[in-house]
């Protein structure tokens, strides 16, 4: 693979990652933002694949498979799965429109500005690096910040989970871009953690729904009172 086409492929993957994380902010529908998250997982796997091909590292292949299966398929499936048809019908409202804590337009503009902040803080660190992958590192930082933004501004538990997972994808992106990935074992462990956390939170949100009727996390205050 030539250096220019490598840089271009990295650029396309980075663009796709950034696009999907904007989409998680943009969509009001929970289903759609979970789909965007799935697409982000696939884009991340593609990015790892590009890095692997460039470095000709065979041990990255299981990592690619892991990322693709876990982030692209399993996690989105867990988030959208409904237990029973009856519960699904009742949860219909919950999977629909998300209400936000702030003006949606303001959130979108904030996402754009966060991308700029990410660029401003990361660029000086990677500017001298010769690798095109390192140059795309600000994208990963932007994903982390945008994930945080989603986490902050959504009311429903599932949407917050989307934000959390987007944040995690951002961390993974930075790791792969800067160091070509973490050791397989570590990656495996981290992924398992994420899966576990997600499962627990999904179960929690089911519990919330049975108690409160929806998963608006503001209701948690009622527990305190």
């Amino acid at each position, binding site marked *: 693979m030539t250096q220019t086409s490598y840089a271009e492929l990295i650029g396309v993957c980075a663009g796709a990652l950034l696009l999907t994380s904007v989409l998680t902010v943009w969509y009001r529908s929970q289903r759609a933002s979970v789909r965007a998250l799935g697409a982000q997982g696939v884009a991340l796997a593609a990015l790892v694949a590009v890095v692997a091909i460039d470095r000709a590292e065979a041990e990255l292949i299981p990592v690619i498979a892991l990322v693709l299966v876990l982030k692209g398929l399993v996690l989105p499936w867990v988030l959208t799965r409904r237990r029973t048809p009856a519960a699904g019908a009742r949860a219909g409202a919950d999977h629909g429109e998300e209400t936000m804590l702030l*003006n949606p*337009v*303001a959130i979108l503009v904030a996402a754009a500005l966060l991308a*700029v902040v990410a*660029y*401003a803080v990361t*660029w*000086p660190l990677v*500017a001298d690096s010769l690798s095109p992958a390192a140059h795309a590192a600000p994208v990963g930082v932007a994903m982390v910040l945008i994930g945080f933004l989603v986490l902050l501004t959504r009311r429903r538990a599932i949407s917050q989970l989307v934000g959390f997972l987007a944040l995690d994808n951002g961390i993974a992106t930075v790791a792969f871009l800067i160091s070509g990935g973490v050791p397989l074992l570590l990656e495996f462990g981290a992924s398992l953690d994420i899966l576990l956390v997600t499962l627990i939170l999904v179960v929690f949100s089911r519990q919330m729904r049975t108690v409160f009727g929806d998963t608006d996390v503001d209701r948690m205050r009622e527990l305190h009172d």
Partner: protein
Amino acid sequence: MTAVSWAMLLQFAFAGLAAALALLPAERIRSVLSGAASAVMSAVGVVTGVLAMNGVTGGLQFAVAVPAVPLTFAPDRLGGLFIVLASVIGLLVAVYGAASVRGASASRTAWFALPLFLMGMQLVPAAADAVSFLLVWEAMALGSTVLLLAEHAGSSRVSSAAVWYAVMSQLSFLFILAGFGVLSAAAGGTDFSALSAVAPASPPALLAFVLLVLGFGSKAGLVPLHVWLPRAHPEAPSHVSAAMSAAMVKMGIYGILLVVVRFFPGGPDWWGIVLLVLGGGSAVYGILQASVSSDLKVLLAYSTTENVGLIVLAIGASVLLTAHGITAAAGAAMLAALLLVVSHAVFKVTLFLAAGSVLHATGERNLDHLGGLGRRMPWTAAAFGIAALGAAALPISSGFVSEWVLLQSLVHGTRVGGAAVSVIVSIAMPIVVAVVALTAGLAVLTFVKAYGIGFLARPRSAAAAGAHESSRVVRAVLIAGAAGVVLLGLVPGPLATALVSVLPASGTPIVESAGLLGVNLPGLGAVLDPLVLVILTAVLASFVIIATLRSAWRNPQRIDAFAWGGGGERAQPRMQYTATSFAEPVVRVFDDVLQPARDVEVTHAGESRYLVNRVRFSQSVTDIVESRLYRPVLTVIDRFGVVVRRIQNGSIHLYLLYSFAAVIVVLVVATL
């Protein structure tokens, strides 16, 4: 004595003549003669300015102030440009005033203040040292305050506007005084050439920059120092608001240019960022307020804030780009700033004078009560429409050319030879482009509203239905202004090259005349040739016109029918969309920024909750900068005033006691 000196002497002579003629007893004669003298004074001012722009040096010196330091008025090229600007506006305003003003605004005081105000404005750019600058600056402020008070001196709105204006003027004066003071102390002289010897990165220069930008920014009407503007412009007589908005505000810009171009051409890059933030904020805030305003003159006043914001933004971009060594784009940004200055002056004077004619004809400045003026005042409507094109930055107007140059300079500012140059510039430019674009979009909406609601459709009130066209002289002034807008938009090449000549010369030329008097920015590889565009449009338009004529020839008859009223004749004029309803979507979209006060009052019929007798809805948008920033400060000052009143109870003996105590303290301190 050079030509400039002679011209300036003549200006002084005519200013004196205008002031003397203002004392004549008969109102009509006073207006015509004093107005004519002011007009001639301004015409001579144009000559002075053009001479100075072309590099003719010279001026006047008065050895009156401090014996050692004479007052010097010797304009340089940049000053010359602003003299031309102030003089052309002065000329239009004086003629308009002579032909139209009656009653209170034609009083002796008002006619006496006009030459003072105009002369002050024409002298500010000529001043060559800090003392004379401050002197004429104060003359300008004083003259405009008196003129603002001219009409309905008893009306509470006018007096409140005058108080705001006077306070903000003095505040601005104090900041400028302090700024020049700091610089003079560092330079050891008040002469401008001495001031520019201070190193740009030294602490006095930085402090002076902050103080001077505050002072000049307040005069220019930058947010958050703009609060006087939407109060003073609407309440002043229309020709005065035209002069204030088109010319006086530009003196604030001249001041900022003085700092960043003449004194410290190599300022640090954060100066640019400061100016970008101030300018961008003013542009967006100004146009948002303008777009939701229903009062025609308030709308124009806020639009001034917007335009001044764009100018300062362009200057800021130029400073930032210069600091990062991107000279081609920096030069283009500075050219854009100057083009915006000229273009805004021309279209805004026309808009304000046309609004004055509307006010004169209908007694209304509320757009919600206007409408249908296009048929009743065709000349005024045409002039307003053309000037509105300029304000909305649509082709083929001066506004379009200047925004085009601005956008080109911003778009080409990030990269030199295909590579990103600096992080800060790469971040700033997209944000600035977005700000300029949003401003441009809202400006189009604002002026479609102003023209469409004010001049089209059916009149919404009896006053609008009974409107009449203004006098011939007034029409001529309006047409001259509108012609200027079109001319500068059609053949921008000569103007652009003339504007560049007032800037310090750089290596490569910033702009060249290209094609049919279009502009070419050689450093950026961008060409704009409006005349070619017009020719192309004319050729294409001929097909449409021929087809229309053929159709009209076959079906010549036009049936005038009632407007669409659901099948009836019930569509009343008051059922039309008003300015308020037109701006409603904008209010909703920018709800968080504008924070309108809404009130819905429902009266139920009898006992039923479901039958509604009447619903009363009211909504008002206030200036949140004023209510959130100034009101708290004013409250604190008010409280302080109560305390001070206790100390100051009017007893002479108490005051003497204070003085005595002060003397004692001074003596004690001096001996220590």
